């Protein structure tokens, strides 16, 4: 059974440095995924992950548990991503890297056309999400890709649940318009 974050925080605060390793193992992937989908740049996402983990390491000692650890770490990543100034060139370069290549087995059973279309489709979806206004993009990414409930997202953003729901609906509606040609 997975150790709760709060237990890991307590262990770290008691001087058990190995607890940080467990936290990294648990949060490395979600942080990178979130940062990739918010910045659209894999390299920039790795920078955000490094800074988020450094902030975690330095801040764990003062973590008082007023909010859940997951809320705290998501806030850190969101704030780091918001601080990033990106230009169009960076976004275009990164988008290609942020779309995962299908693994070898998939390529074997699919025709080249299908593989190419799949990648193209993934890029179109990624561009549509990245083109959303920041407020809607954050909610869509947290809800859809990180499977966080509206109350949890509201806590992370410091906004009412009703606002989060409205942003999600608006985000999906905007995406529907942009992806309309792909819907069959």
């Amino acid at each position, binding site marked *: 059974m997975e150790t709760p974050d709060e237990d890991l925080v307590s262990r770290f605060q008691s*001087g058990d440095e190995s607890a940080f390793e467990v936290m990294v193992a648990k949060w490395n992937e979600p942080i990178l995924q979130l940062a990739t989908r918010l910045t659209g740049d894999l390299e920039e996402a790795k920078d955000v992950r490094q800074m988020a983990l450094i902030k975690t390491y330095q801040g764990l000692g003062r973590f008082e548990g007023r909010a859940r650890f997951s809320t705290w770490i998501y806030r850190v990543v969101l704030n780091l991503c918001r601080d990033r100034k990106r230009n169009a060139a960076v976004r275009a370069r990164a988008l290609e890297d*942020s779309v995962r290549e299908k693994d070898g087995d998939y390529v074997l059973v699919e025709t080249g056309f299908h593989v190419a279309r*799949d990648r193209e489709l993934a890029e179109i979806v990624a561009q549509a999400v990245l083109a959303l206004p920041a407020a809607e993009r954050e909610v869509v990414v947290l809800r859809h890709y990180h499977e966080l409930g509206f109350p949890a997202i509201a806590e992370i953003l410091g906004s009412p649940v009703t606002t989060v729901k409205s942003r999600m609906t608006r985000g*999906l*509606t905007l995406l529907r318009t942009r992806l309309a040609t792909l819907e069959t």
Partner: protein
Amino acid sequence: MEHEDLTPDCGRMRNELAGYLYGELALDARTLLEAHLEGCGACREELSGLRETQALLGRWETPPANDDPRELAAAIAARAGQALPRLAVQPRRARLVRWSALLCGAAAALLFLLSVLGTRVSFEGGNLQLSFALPGASAPAPRDTLSADEVQAYIAQQVALHTSHLEQNFEQSQRALYQRVAQMNKEELLRLAQTVDYALDQNQEALNSRLNNFARTAASTDAQTIQALNQLATMTVSNPNHPNR
């Protein structure tokens, strides 16, 4: 895409569609929405479109992290530690540096003595052997020997390596200690201060004891070495083949 016959409820109901799609509506809200959907083609169409959009979102996959968490954690800890302010007072580090300097000085003095004596070091039959080329001596150098310069360089390298390890370990311990101290409240800090005082006293006693032992052993070893050197010198000078004789 947009249906024409929207009812006054449609705006409010559509705000619930995202919650409905992601299974986040409470039972009463879901019942109300489903009742509305039954009679509203426009909202059913909207829901259908959003559901397709929801499915499309799943097509964007991102690369897995593929990092070793242990290595990543170590790198982060090291990086985070660098950003920490150094302690203003570092008495243990100062002592460590003083002792390292003392040991290096002693090693250098010993090496100088060996160098003056023209000492050669060799390993023969698994045993370390020293030979001395006193002034005027012309004994051929044995095979597989190291010159005093080479030994000096090797020992200096090992002393530097050892000192570097000591300093690294000390840096790591210092960072870990700093992290822990930063988390402590006033009571804990007071307890820590008392513990540190006690530990320092204990360490000082233990250190004094070990130093006394070391000094006794060193004096004894020195006496034996001087005696052996004298014997060797006597044997060399009394050698009938010695050119100075």
